[in-house]
């Protein structure tokens, strides 16, 4: 067996086996399909949980080393690797406190609303060509649609707690996230124009192979806009107005405790992971690699790119101070959105002109001759 495509082979083998088993049992294909998706979803959940625990640990270590500290060092032995696992176990056993004046059911539902959509986004991300839950034709549109539901959950949590800090955090967060949603979506439009498809696999295909370059080189402005808007979408410094610790205690999740707080934390890092995965897939070539790296599995390539972007996001967080709320809104509406429109406009124009460059040049030449 070729080692370099192990995981993809394993998945295809499992799918084939399941389909055979179901047809041998005389059941319709839909059972096999459902089982496949459930297995994939559970595998994704395991992957997400492990990554998030590891990312929280990494965030602490990175921030510590950037501030000349050591960070967690004791739990588990080597560099405190089990610190976040211990934290999660602790959260599980913590008392769940709901404020007496809160809207109890909205308060209870908010953690579900924040976590479920962040898993749904993973549905259309290709980890390898065939290692994808379902290559839906809505593709990236689906990711944006689900990631924008997080706003609802944050405003639900903020409002339901009946606390002034959480309410402020919630509505500030809503204002920020809807403002940065527009440049985020617009920045990807130019890539969609070049590819002609919403499917992430098609985007990877458009960046891999001979004579094709990553979109980060052909669409540098779009990449930059995406990265900035994505930082704001996942509420990280310098755009962490919703949970500005020094102003709002802890923002929208001040009144949460126990595992419900854990779900807010989990979804925050899951969203960071998904934003980085999309950036790696759309702009950095996804699971594809140059030919001299062809023996490395695609999933490893994708994860290396993803974690590089995650690291950049952490780096940004511990480098820049928080923006003031009015400057934040100004920056989004007066700089990012016009720039995103200019990017689309220029891309469209260049595509229209470069379609038949020789013909257009000839026309210009003829017109010039006529004028002269």
């Amino acid at each position: 067996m070729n080692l370099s495509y192990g995981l993809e082979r394993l998945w295809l083998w499992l799918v084939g086996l399941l389909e055979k088993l179901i047809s041998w049992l005389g059941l319709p294909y839909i059972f096999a399909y459902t089982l496949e998706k459930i297995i994939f979803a559970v595998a994704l959940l395991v992957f997400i949980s492990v990554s998030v625990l590891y990312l929280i640990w990494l965030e602490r270590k990175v921030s510590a080393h950037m501030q000349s500290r050591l960070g967690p060092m004791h739990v588990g032995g080597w560099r405190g690797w089990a610190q976040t696992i211990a934290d999660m176990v602790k959260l599980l056993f913590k008392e769940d406190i709901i404020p007496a004046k809160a809207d109890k059911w909205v308060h209870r539902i908010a953690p579900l609303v924040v976590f479920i959509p962040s898993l749904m986004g993973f549905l259309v991300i290709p980890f390898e060509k065939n290692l994808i839950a379902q290559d839906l034709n809505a593709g990236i549109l689906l990711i944006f649609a689900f990631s924008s539901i997080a706003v609802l959950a944050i405003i639900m949590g903020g409002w339901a707690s009946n606390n002034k800090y959480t309410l402020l955090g919630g509505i500030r967060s809503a204002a920020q996230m809807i403002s940065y949603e527009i440049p985020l979506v617009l920045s990807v439009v130019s890539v969609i124009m070049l590819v002609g498809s919403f499917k992430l696999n098609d985007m990877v295909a458009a960046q891999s192979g001979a004579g094709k370059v990553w979109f980060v080189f052909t669409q540098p402005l779009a990449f930059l806009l995406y990265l900035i808007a994505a930082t704001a979408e996942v509420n990280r410094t310098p755009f962490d107005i919703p949970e500005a610790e020094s102003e709002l205690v802890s923002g929208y999740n001040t009144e949460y405790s126990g595992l419900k707080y854990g779900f807010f934390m989990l979804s925050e890092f899951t969203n960071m992971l998904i934003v980085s995965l999309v950036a790696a897939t759309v702009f950095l070539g996804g699971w594809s690699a140059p030919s001299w790296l062809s023996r490395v599995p695609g999933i490893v390539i994708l994860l290396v790119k993803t974690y590089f972007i995650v690291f950049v996001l952490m780096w940004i967080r511990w480098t820049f101070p928080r923006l003031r709320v009015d400057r934040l809104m100004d920056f989004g509406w007066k700089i990012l959105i016009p720039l995103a429109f200019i990017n689309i406009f220029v891309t469209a124009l260049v595509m229209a002109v470069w379609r038949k460059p020789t013909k257009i040049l000839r026309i210009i030449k003829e017109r010039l001759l006529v004028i002269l």
Partner: protein
Amino acid sequence: MINEYLAVLIFFVVALGFTIGGLVTAFLVRNSKPGYEKETTYECGEEPVGGAWIQFNMRYYFFAILFVIFDVEVIFLFPWAVVYKELLSNFGIFAFLEMALFLGILILGLVYAWKKGHLKWE
């Protein structure tokens, strides 16, 4: 043939099961001793004054309305972006000009809101 979007439903059910399972596990293993002091909302140690369900700044609504407008425009942009290559080969430069007109009107709206001062956060 199965509808592809069944996968969305399956994922939703799995995610719901995971979150509810987690919360139920926590409910079973955790301690619970509610008390008056615990259940007051946090206000830096003081007794909270009044509730938080009050009227808040009008600014937020302006941005929400602007967002709705722009988001709908973006939804119009997406289908065009997907078929832009085909449009170019079928209709030539008109594919670009049509959308340039649309984008122009859209940007005019942004400029209007800007000039009216609705993009200013007070």
